[in-house]
Structure formats: C-alpha cells, structure tokens
C-alpha cells in the first residue's frame, strides 16, 4: 500500500518557521503560523483538510518558560479562524476564543498573539472556530522549564493522537441531529438478543431489554461518531509513525489527545509507563501498564525499553472501533505485533445513574437555572440526585458497576485520577469559598448538549470573583463521559489527595458520576468553559465564565 501524505509530519517535526529568535535575547521569540488548506490521505484517497504552516498536525511549538512570545497567526482560509493555546495560562485577550477573547481572525488577516509563558510542560494548540479542529487545525506545544526537569530522560518525543474522518464535520453533526445513532453500527440486534438469551436466560434478557427500552437508550452508545481513522502525529496505523531509541535509554513520550471526539486507552505491550506529567504539570511518578486519555488531556510518560526490538504503542478508541498505532524501535522500518482490538464495552445501568427519569429539563426552558450558580445555598433541591453513586470512590473514575471501567490488557495497573499527585503541594490549598453545581445534561435523541439543562445560547455566564476559590461540582446526568475544559485557570482535581491535588485543564466526568474540582479564580477576564467533545461543545455544552474584580462583583 502506498500513502500519499502531503502535509508531512516526520520524525524531525520541529521544522517550522522560526522568524528569527528576536534580538531581545533567549527569552523572547517570534513565531509565524499560517492556517491554510491541505489534503490528507489515510488510505481512502486524498481528502481536503486544514493545516497549520502546511502541516497536519501543526508544527511543534517549542517555547521556554519565562519567554515573551509573539505569535503571528495568518488566516489563509476563506472563513474566520482562531488559535487557542490549550492549557497555557495567558491573558484572556490572547486566549483565542472567538466571541469571548477576541473577534477571531478574518480571512486574509494576521492576528498577533503576545504573552509570557509562565509554565512548562506539554500542551497543545488548536482552532476554536467551528469544526476546524476536526479538520486538522491542531498542533503540539512543548515548554521547556527554566530549571531542571525532575526526572531523567534521554529522548523526547511528542505523540499526538487524533481522529480523522473523511466526512465533513458539518455533515457529521447534521447526521447526528437527524438520526442520533447514525454512527452506531454495533446496535443490539435479533442476533445479540438470542446470544443473550442463551447466556443469561430469557427472563434476564427481556428484563434487560425492557430497562433500556424504557429509557430509550442504547448500551452500545459509547461514542457518538464512528468511521474515524486514528492518527499518531498525523500518521495512520498503516503509516506507522516510529520513534527511535537505543536499548536501555529512557524515552519520554508526550501524549496529547487532539481528537475531536475520541478517548483512547493507551499501552505499550512489554513496557511499564512511568507517568510523570498530566496536563503539563509534573506529578509524582506513577508506574502504570495502561492509561485512558480523555479528549484534550495530555500525559507525559517515561519508558525504558531494554531489548533491541520494536515495541508497539497502542491507543485503542474507548469504543474499540479502531486504534491509533505507532512504534518504538531501535532502527527505522521495524514493527512489533499489533494486538487485536479488545471487545467493545457496553454501558450498564450504573452508567445511567443520572439519566433515569430526569432528563426532560433539556427542553423545558426557563426552570431550574437562575440560582444554579449559587447551588451551595441551602434549599436547593438535590432530591433528584438520589441514586447517584457517592462521589469519588477514589480508586475508580467510574460509577460502581460501570461498563466503561477500563482494565489493563495485561491485567496490570491502569491509571486512575487518584494516582495523580502533584509533584509540589499547592501553596494556597484551602477549603473552597463556595460551590457551584454543574449538571452535565443533554438530549441524546435530538443530539444537543447542555449544562444545567441549558445550552450556551440560553444561559447566563458563570460569574466568579477574583481571588475566590470555587468548587465546581460536576454531576454527570448523561450516559456519555464529558471532558470538561476550563480556560485561563487551573482546576485542582479532587480525588482525595488534598494539597497534592493535580492541576488539570481538562477533567473527564464519567457517566453517572460526580466529580469535584477546586478553581482558584486568579485570572480576571472572560473565559470559555466547555465539554471538549467537539460536537457536544458545538451543540451547547459550553459556558462563558467571567472573573470579575472584587469591587465589580458586589452588585
């Protein structure tokens, strides 16, 4: 098989236009990026795609902690575009969200971003305009720390995962709205009914079908969209992106999930992965056999392949419709075994925790929302949440009995959020000043998504006061996992580690689960806050968060 691939993202992916490290010294750099068109061929023929400086993914943006950066983003498309620096803490006017941070970048225009890099680690950047992210406008960011890294490694590779569809994203969304199970080709059939009868008996099978039928939901509904080809640094599984090592070397792999819609279960058969960073922030190293990376998360791991052989990097999509695959090898052209996809998971009633009975608010308009941002006040009716599993059974990120609970392929250690402990304790760790409850809601059948039953266009912004510490309590009332992303401020993931709670820019909230994060409101301005599943964000699971100066918040 031959693959044409014009956008070219090779091993030496660092080649991009560095328009002269500015004369000001090592701590100022100017970078030029151009959003344009390209084609991609993942095996089904060339398809139109978008690119950054001719590449898909875009070039690795290598920055230094403390650097004053100037990034010129030129729009060579015939529609508006934008670039958001995912995970970088920047002034809100530089955050790149059209309609919130700035008006966007018009066709033919160039927008100049200016900010100081105040952090180090692995991040990424992507368009925040329409569905351009799904079409190829994404790339990695690697920020080198001022000081020494707290762990040793001999080689350093970016491994950017993504999902590519030959369909136009507008078509995908329209299909979902017209038939919400359009992409589900593993629905239950007469055949699966008969199989279940022979395994579980007629009574149990009928009861099970009645339970799901009553809710009008499908246990096979793991991912909204299928038909994806999963890519590693822009390469399809057959194109096998390869990273080189010498046996015994420590190899740092910077995993970035730049997918529009896909969670991956990541493993390298034969190797332990030492997780050293999550969402760009160093964590106390934790050895695992496998980890699940939610959409828009990053994990840095260090592996130490000892043998003079190839190792497969396997990233199966959570719904097991496919995998991204790459190779670690001592020499180019080598390949290791590629294990078969594991069986598809099925949701259970545990994943329906919040979906029972109470989903009608999606359509009901005005009720229930006005006071939601102040849900710590007494008198809020939480009675509908009875039957929710208690928050954080810390050793699992899923509801007890969930069908989505992952297990390591080799029976070993699977990373959970509770394993993530910050390398350094948070200096200002204290009880939150107040709690905001955010019910993750949606209408599966008509395919639109919301927070507290309201779409973005129907909702007031969430207002925070500068300096306060707010606990966000996510209550997932849907049957999908939602990777919730807050711009501009860190979320301290509460998984029982107190002042060692890790800083995250994305937290995945599993179906039927409640998850809390604490947010130090330390960045004045207007910020985006949304589910990072692109079609969930586009259909309403989005809020504007306004951090107001203390004085202004009084009225």
């Amino acid at each position, binding site marked *: 098989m031959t693959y044409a691939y014009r956008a070219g993202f090779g091993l030496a992916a660092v080649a991009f236009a560095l328009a002269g490290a500015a004369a000001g010294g090592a701590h100022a750099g100017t970078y030029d990026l151009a959003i344009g068109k390209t084609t991609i061929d993942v095996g089904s023929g060339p398809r139109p795609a978008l690119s950054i400086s001719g590449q898909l993914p875009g070039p690795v943006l290598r920055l230094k902690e403390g650097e004053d950066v100037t990034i010129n983003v030129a729009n060579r498309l015939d529609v508006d575009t934008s670039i958001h620096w995912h995970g970088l803490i920047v002034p809100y006017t530089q955050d790149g969200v059209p309609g919130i941070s700035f008006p966007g970048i018009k066709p033919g225009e160039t927008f100049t971003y200016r900010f100081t890099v105040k952090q180090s680690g692995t991040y990424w950047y992507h368009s925040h305009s329409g*569905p351009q992210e799904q079409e190829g406008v994404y790339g990695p960011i690697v920020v080198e720390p001022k000081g020494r890294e707290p762990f040793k490694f001999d080689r350093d590779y970016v491994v950017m995962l993504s999902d590519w569809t030959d369909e136009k994203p507008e078509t995908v969304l329209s299909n979902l709205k017209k038939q919400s199970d*359009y992409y589900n080709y593993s629905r239950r059939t007469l055949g699966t009914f008969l199989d279940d009868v022979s395994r579980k008996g007629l009574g149990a099978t009928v009861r099970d079908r009645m339970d799901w039928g009553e*809710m009008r939901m499908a246990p096979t509904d793991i991912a909204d969209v299928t038909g994806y080809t999963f890519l590693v640094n822009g390469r399809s599984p057959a194109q096998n992106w390869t990273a080189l090592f010498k046996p015994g070397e420590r190899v740092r792999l910077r995993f970035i999930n730049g997918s529009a819609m896909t969670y991956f279960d990541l493993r390298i058969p034969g190797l332990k992965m030492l997780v050293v960073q999550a969402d760009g922030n160093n964590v106390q190293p934790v050895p695992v056999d496998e980890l699940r990376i939610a959409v828009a998360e990053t994990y840095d791991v260090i592996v130490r392949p000892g043998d003079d052989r190839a190792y497969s990097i396997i990233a199966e999509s959570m719904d097991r419709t496919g995998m991204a695959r790459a190779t670690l090898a001592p020499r180019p052209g080598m390949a290791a075994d590629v294990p078969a996809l594991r069986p598809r998971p099925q949701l259970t009633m545990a994943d329906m925790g919040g979906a029972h009975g109470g989903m009608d608010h999606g359509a009901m308009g005005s009720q229930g929302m006005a006071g939601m941002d102040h849900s710590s006040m007494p008198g809020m009716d939480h009675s509908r949440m009875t039957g929710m599993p208690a928050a954080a059974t810390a050793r699992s990120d899923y509801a007890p009995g969930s069908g989505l609970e992952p297990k390591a392929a080799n029976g070993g250690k699977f990373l959970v959020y509770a394993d993530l402990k910050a390398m350094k304790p948070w200096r200002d760790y204290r009880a939150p000043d107040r709690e905001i409850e955010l019910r993750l809601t949606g*209408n599966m059948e008509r395919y639109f998504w919301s927070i507290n039953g309201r779409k973005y266009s129907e909702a007031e912004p969430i207002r925070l006061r500068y300096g306060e510490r707010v606990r966000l309590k996510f209550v997932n009332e849907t049957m999908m996992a939602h990777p919730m992303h807050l711009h501009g401020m860190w979320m301290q993931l509460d998984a029982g580690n107190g002042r060692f709670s890790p800083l995250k820019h994305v937290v995945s909230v599993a179906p039927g689960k409640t998850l809390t994060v604490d947010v130090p409101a330390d960045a004045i301005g207007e910020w985006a806050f949304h589910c990072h599943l692109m079609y969930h964000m*586009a259909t309403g699971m989005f809020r504007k968060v306004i951090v107001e100066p203390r004085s202004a918040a009084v009225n």
Partner: protein
Amino acid sequence: MISARTIAIVALGALLFAPAAAAETDAMILTFVEVERLEARVKDGKETLNWEAQGWIGEDYNKLWIKTEGEQQAGGKLEKAEVQVLYSRLVSDFFDVQAGVRHDFDPHPSRTFGVIGVQGLAPHFFEANAAAFVSDHGEVSARFEAEYDLLLTQRLVLQPSAEINVAAQSVRERGVGAGVNDVELGLRLRYEIRREFAPYVGLSWERKLGRTDDLARDAGEDVETLSFVVGLRMWF
C-alpha cells in the same frame, strides 16, 4: 387538477431551499427531508403508487414540519393526497407537540383541517404519532400511527407498523363512517445500504371497519386488502 405529486415536490422543495445553517451556533437551523415510504403496492393484480414523506426546518426546540401522504392508481387517478403544515415544539426529551393545518386534495370533496398532535419516540423505541383533526365542516377525526425497528442485523431492519383512523361522525360523501374507520398494518423489510438509503419489500394489510366498512360495501369497494409492497426509504 393539481397533481398531488406536484404538491409534494413543491412542499419538500421548499424545505430544501431554506436558509443555510450557521454551523458554529448551538441553535443552528437544519433541514430534514424523509421519504419514509415511496412504494408500489400490488393487490389482486392492481397496482398503486403510495407515498409518505415528511420534512422539517428548524432548530432543536422549534420546527416547521411538512408531511404528505397519498395514493395514486396505475392510471394516474389520485385516491388520496394530503399535505400537512405544522409548527412543532419539543416539549420533552423525546416528544414534540405539533399544530397546524392539513389539506386533503383527494378524496373528493376536498377538505381542510386544523391539526393538533404529538410525535416522538415512545418507551421501548416505538416511533409514535397521534393527531386530531377538525375539518372546515366541523368534522372531528383522529389518527394514530406507530412503528418499530427490529434490527435483524446492523443494516437489515424489519419494521412492523400500524395506523388506525377514527372519526366522530360520518361523512358519507368521503366514505367515512363514525367510529373506527380502518386499520392498516404493515411489515417492511429494508436494507440500509446507507443510513439514508434503504430499499425494502413488505406487506400491507388494510381493513375498513364499522360504518366505514358499510359505506365501502355499498360503493362496491374492497373492505379488506392485502398488498405486496416494494419501495424505497430515503432521507437527507
């Protein structure tokens, strides 16, 4: 005489040329056209062309629906042809309330009706539609429809369906008797080449009942027909 087919084409065409969607907003306007049934029916050596189509334009909560159904004899004569134009409002996760007008071009004499109904997905995945009609002559009637998709495989779908029409009073000249008018049961086996395009074969059984049955007998019409159907289901 205006052909019902022309009407259907114009109605559905109007949806197609509706304003384009603004993709990046969560309140985008979409259009949907579904030719649920376009089929030849063969009964006792006689053939008819039957159609049932619907479409909408709108956002998540508010939509304008157009529905049409009818039957044409092999010679070109229209037996039945109706068009409905409805405002549709999402009132729960799975159901819309719909209100508007219906016009029957055939059978003669033609009638115009006010319509109020509900449409959506009932528990256990039954697609359901119930509508009440009041004609410009004050006649009250109702229609109940339900269908179910039984997946034999991911693409081969057996669809049983049922429709019942009832009327509050007789309208002799239109062959309608008070009470239950008729029952239509269908069983269609389709193959989804794509989700949007599925040819099918099946059976359709119709039975007139009560006073409607009497009127049909008086007019020398069949009161019970079993037809073999072959057709296409498509949407875009």
